[in-house]
């Protein structure tokens, strides 16, 4: 059951990329960035007010974490520009490579105060399969 839910989350992620891509097509990159973040801000503000949620920090956190939205804008920028030019499938596949590389670096060096997790050399096997998959996807072929 929860396995199906995990897959459904993946579906939601792609639908989000698709929606944001459609917004970029209609409004352009810079305006779509504003619309997406304004919508989320207003919806969550309404939700949190309705819930009478507290904004007081429960525990001390690094103040730099409050800027999480800034790299988020760059992320949405990359998302909308790639999805509208190389398509969803290719963007998702290449995004996976970026995720694997970045999370391996973060884990290996224990960045962001996370526990160090040394990279396992055996995982080169899976990574090779992933790169082969991307090569097949990008294989030059007659325009269909």
């Amino acid at each position, binding site marked *: 059951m929860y396995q199906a839910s*995990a*897959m*459904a989350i*993946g*579906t939601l*992620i*792609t*639908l989000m990329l698709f*929606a944001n891509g*459609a*917004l970029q*097509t*209609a409004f*352009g990159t*810079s*305006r779509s*960035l504003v619309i*997406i*973040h*304004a*919508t*989320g*801000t207003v*919806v*969550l503000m309404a939700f*949190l007010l309705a819930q009478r*949620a507290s904004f*007081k*920090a429960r525990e001390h*956190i690094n103040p730099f974490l*409050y800027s999480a*939205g*800034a790299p*988020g*804008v*760059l992320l949405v920028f990359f998302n909308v520009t*790639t999805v509208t*030019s*190389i*398509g*969803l*499938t*290719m963007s998702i*596949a290449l*995004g996976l490579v*970026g*995720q694997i*590389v970045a999370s391996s670096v973060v884990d290996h060096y224990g960045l*962001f105060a*996370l526990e160090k997790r040394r990279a*396992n050399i055996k*995982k080169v*096997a*899976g990574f090779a*399969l992933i*790169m082969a*998959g991307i090569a*097949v*996807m990008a*294989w030059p072929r007659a325009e269909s």
Partner: protein
Amino acid sequence: MMYLFAVLAGCLVVLSMVMNSQLSRGVGVFQGVFINFAGGLLTSLPVYFLYLYFGWEAFAETSPSTPWYAFLGAFLAIAIVASCNVVIPKIPVVFSAVLIFLGQIVTGLILDAVMAGSFDPYKAIGALLITAGLFVNAKIDAESDRADAAVGTKPEAVGIGPG
């Protein structure tokens, strides 16, 4: 160039996920997402004015008709965060990444085919290979976690791996 952008997007997903999960631990899940969106709005407005000032983007006089679903992105983002909080703790972490990716890529294949009006078998075969590769690595992770548990070192199972 776009290939590089797509890979960088993946790197930013990791950065974003780490920052947001630590932020949420401090202020609450939805408060964290709110701070994320509000900070995003504060960042995207100057970006928009830069675009305007330098004329990087030509805006059409009459905007083309916008499909209704184009405005759902932010709602979906909130739904994703909410469902991750319910689902992820209930399945082994290493495999949740594989399952989420599978859902993502299958939906991507379907939507790409619908948009292009034709199905691309190369992309499907590629997706299959990538999923197999992810699965192999998830297996390796699961094994090394078990080995760690056997020696008594605490397995840090909550990786931030792909998802």
